[in-house]
C-alpha cells in the first residue's frame, strides 16, 4: 500500500531542448507525435498550451534516453508502457491539500451558505489528479455538516492518478505544510484527526470518501455527464490553449445548474474567456464565480 505514495507525484516536470535543436522542425515533430498519439491511443493533447507541453515532452524524451522528438514518437507508438509514462508526464497536475487556503476559507463563507439551501448537492471536481484537493473539500463539507447531503464526482483523464486518489495516502512529510494550510483555510478540528500514519504515508480516513465517486473523464473528448451545483477545476486548464479552454468552459457552463458555482485556480481568470458575461463573481480574488445565465 505504501508503494502508492509518491509514485506519480514526482512527475510533471519541465525540461528544455538543446540550444541547437531546430525550432521549426521541433514544432513539426511535436505535431506529428501528438497526431500519432491521438490516432493510436485516443488521447488528445493537440490543443494543449505549447510552451509547457513541449517542456513536458522534453522531460520524457530525456528520461527515456532519447535525443529527438521523432525517436520519442517511435518509442511511444511501439511501446504502450512508454506511452503510459508519457501520459503521466503530460497529464499529471501537482497539487497540495488546501492549496490556496484563502479560497477554502471563502468557499466556507460564501458558497456553503448557498449550498445549505439545496436538499442535495452535486459537485464535480474536474481534473482531480492524485486527490489532495478532493480530500480537502470533503473535510470542509463534513465540518460544515454537509457531508451526507453531497456527492462529489472527482474525475481525471488518468486512471493511474485516480488509483492513488482512491487510496488516500499522502506523503507523511507533507503533513506539517498541509496542517498549516488547513488552519489558514478555517479548519475547525485538529487536522491530525483525519489521518493515521501508515509506513511513510499518512492514510486519510476512508469514510471521508463515502460520498465521493472517482472516475475517468477526459475534458477534451468526453461530454457532460450530469448537472452540478458546483464545479471545481483548478490549475487544469492552464495546460490548455485558449481555444480548448473556451470549449471546456462551454462544457462546464452546460453542466452547471442556474446559479451553479464555478471555482477556478488562483491565477486563472474568466477575463480571458468568452464565457465571462455568463457568470458573476462570488469572490473575484479567489476565482469563485456563479452562473447567472
Amino acid at each position, binding site marked *: 500500500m505504501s508503494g502508492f505514495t509518491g509514485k506519480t507525484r514526482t512527475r*510533471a*516536470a*519541465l525540461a528544455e531542448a538543446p*540550444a541547437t535543436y531546430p525550432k521549426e522542425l521541433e514544432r513539426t515533430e511535436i505535431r506529428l507525435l501528438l497526431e500519432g498519439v491521438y490516432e493510436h491511443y485516443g488521447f488528445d493533447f493537440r490543443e494543449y498550451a505549447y*510552451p*509547457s507541453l513541449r517542456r513536458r515532452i522534453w522531460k520524457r524524451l530525456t528520461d527515456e534516453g532519447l535525443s529527438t522528438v521523432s525517436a520519442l514518437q517511435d518509442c511511444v507508438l511501439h511501446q504502450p508502457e512508454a506511452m503510459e509514462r508519457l501520459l503521466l508526464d503530460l497529464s499529471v497536475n*501537482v497539487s497540495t491539500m488546501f492549496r490556496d487556503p484563502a479560497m477554502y476559507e471563502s468557499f466556507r463563507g460564501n458558497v456553503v451558505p448557498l449550498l445549505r439551501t439545496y436538499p442535495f448537492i452535486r459537485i464535480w471536481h474536474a481534473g482531480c489528479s492524485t486527490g489532495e484537493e478532493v480530500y480537502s473539500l470533503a473535510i470542509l463539507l463534513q465540518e460544515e455538516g454537509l457531508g451526507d447531503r453531497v456527492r462529489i464526482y472527482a474525475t481525471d483523464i488518468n486512471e493511474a492518478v485516480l488509483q492513488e486518489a482512491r487510496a488516500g495516502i499522502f506523503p507523511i512529510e507533507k503533513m506539517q505544510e498541509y496542517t498549516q494550510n488547513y488552519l489558514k483555510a478555517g479548519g475547525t478540528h485538529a487536522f491530525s484527526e483525519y489521518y493515521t500514519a501508515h509506513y511513510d504515508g499518512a492514510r486519510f480516513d476512508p469514510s471521508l470518501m463515502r460520498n465521493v465517486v472517482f472516475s475517468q473523464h477526459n475534458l477534451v473528448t468526453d461530454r457532460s455527464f450530469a448537472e452540478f451545483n458546483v464545479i471545481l477545476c483548478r490549475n487544469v486548464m*492552464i495546460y490548455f490553449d485558449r481555444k480548448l479552454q473556451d470549449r471546456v468552459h462551454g462544457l462546464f457552463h452546460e453542466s452547471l445548474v442556474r446559479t451553479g458555482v464555478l471555482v477556478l485556480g488562483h*491565477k486563472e*481568470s474568466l477575463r480571458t474567456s468568452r464565457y465571462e458575461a455568463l457568470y458573476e463573481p462570488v469572490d473575484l480574488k479567489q476565482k469563485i464565480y456563479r452562473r447567472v445565465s
Partner: protein
Amino acid sequence: MKKTKLIVIGTSAGGLHALSIVLSGLRPDIDVPIVIVQHRAPDSHDLAAVLQDSTTLVVEEAEDKVILQDGRVYIAPPDYHLLVSKGEISLTTDAPVRFSRPSIDVLFESSAESYGTGLVAVVLTGANQDGSRGAVRVAAAGGRVIVQDPSTAESPTMPAAAARSVKNALVLPLERIAPALTDLAARGITTGIRK
C-alpha cells in the same frame, strides 16, 4: 538593429529592494512589457502592490493566458512557473526546477525561445544560481544579458553565477541598470551601450 520586445528580470534574496530601484528608474513611457520572477514564499506579501509604489507603470500579478501589454510590469505569482511565448503568459504548477517555483531559468528559456534577439534578461541579487542556465540561452538566442554587479548586490551568489556563465553579459551597478534598460528599449540591442 533589432528592437527590444521584452524585458525579463530574475531575482531572489534582496530582490524587493533591487526591484524597486530598477522600476523607479525606468522611464514612464518605456514601450516594452516587463516580466519579473522573484522567489518568495507562497503566502508572502502582495509583491505587485508593494512594487507599485515605486513606479507609475502598472504592476500586476500575472494570470494565465494574459496578453502582454507594452509598458506594463508582470510579477510571477508564487508557486507557479511563468512561461512567456509569443506575447502570452502561460502559468504551470509543474514541479520546482532546481528547487525553484517560479523558476527564473524557465522564464528566461521560454522567453529566449520565442523572442530571440528581441529579449533583454536581467539577473539581480539572489542567494542561489537560478537564472544562469536561462541567461546562457538568452545570449545564445541573440538576446542581451544584464547582470547586477555582485559587489552592489545584497546577495552576490546569483549575479556572480550569471556573470560567470555569460561571457558577454553587461555587468552594471544596481543604479545603472534602469538607464541601460531604457536605452535598450528605445534603441534596440545591437547598438551597444556605454559600459
